[in-house]
């Protein structure tokens, strides 16, 4: 394994970030350790738990299963990028608070990313579609029911607007 650093340019939450990184630095480690965007959580580090989910060019992926160099030239959205520009919570994030869709909060960033990706492509999902969308995210507090309710609430509110 080499110590060579590779130049990357990645758009993170709308901002172009440039860095020189080792070839095998995972995307989640770069986001957390270098950019200090610690909203994205590291859970299992082998692609099972979904806590590290981010949007890559708008699609949810596991950032522990990608190397930073692979995101070169792509667009990454982390949980920090879901909030409104003034820093207030998004409709989905508000819904999570209101329906008690989190306890310890470890899975929450991944759940939010997975749910936001669903709502972006399908503003009026069925319960089955919501469950499918968050199927790759584990919650250890077993709060799945409230998470499903939160996504339903966010969908209703977005529709009503």
């Amino acid at each position: 394994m080499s110590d060579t650093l590779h130049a990357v340019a990645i758009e993170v939450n709308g901002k172009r970030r440039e860095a020189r990184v080792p070839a095998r630095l995972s995307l989640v480690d770069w986001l957390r350790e270098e950019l200090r965007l610690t909203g994205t959580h590291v859970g299992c580090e082998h692609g099972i738990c979904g806590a590290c989910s981010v949007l890559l060019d708008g699609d949810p992926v596991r950032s522990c299963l990608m190397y930073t160099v692979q995101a070169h030239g792509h667009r990454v959205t982390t949980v920090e990028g879901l909030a409104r520009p003034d820093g207030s919570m998004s409709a989905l994030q508000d819904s999570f608070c209101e329906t008690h869709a989190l306890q310890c909060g470890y899975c929450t960033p991944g759940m939010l990313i997975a749910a936001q990706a669903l709502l972006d492509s399908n503003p009026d999902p069925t319960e089955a579609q919501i469950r499918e969308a968050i199927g790759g995210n584990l919650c250890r507090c077993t709060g799945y029911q409230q998470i499903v309710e939160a996504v339903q609430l966010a969908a209703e509110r977005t529709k009503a607007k």
Partner: protein
Amino acid sequence: MLATHGDSAKLLAGGQSLVPMMAMRLVRPAWLVDINEIAALKFVKLENDAARIGACTRQCVVDRDEALYSRVPLLRQALAWVGHIQTRNRGTVGGSLAHADPSAELPLAAQVLGAKLVLRSSKGARTLEAEKFFAGPMATAARPDECLEEIHWPAWGEKRTGSAFTEIAIRHGDFAMVAAAAQLALDADGRCTRAAFGLGGVGAVPLAFPKIAARLAGTKLDDEAIGDAASEAAKATEPGSDLHATKEYRRHLARVLAGRALREARDRALAVR
């Protein structure tokens, strides 16, 4: 790169199996060759009797392709069981085949349909039948200097064709304990003209049963004929035992799931008028 470094280099496609294995230090490749940005490996081309898919085409792209679904429906039916949305957004068709997990869905679909795999090295290309490609658990006939380039999935021309994929896993999206896939074609009277089916997770490689399937041709595919074929196939499997399932339970699942896949495929074919 592959020719120079041989076994110490690994191709990195979607990374949804290789990167976890590296994270657990089960593999430690000195060299990783990332093929994700090679546009020539990403395509879906429909031809008269086959769909050609570039090895690095992402699973989500195949899943969403309506024209492909109408020609090779088994692919989308299999992908519904492959991991989760996040992994299908990165995972590739060729990566899953080259990884050759005996319980994985796409290798089973490749076996059942008799897919052809094109392997390329700096010396040239060769084409292998799925049956010749899968060599054992996580082992294929690809040489260290070869890259899987594209896969030809046969598209059946019969109007009344039906296919189905089903499996049992601990949780949806987990590795299958046993998986079953089937594809059947019927004539206007509902008589079977062509049959293919197979089982995954019950041997070193995914298994197809062409001889047993051939005996379904000419029948009306009643539940009894299907049940006999499923029993015979299950008897021919050599599943292993582990924490999750004994070999007896796996063989039981093999019979039940093969029957279920065949019946679903039959009912879908019957629904085509």
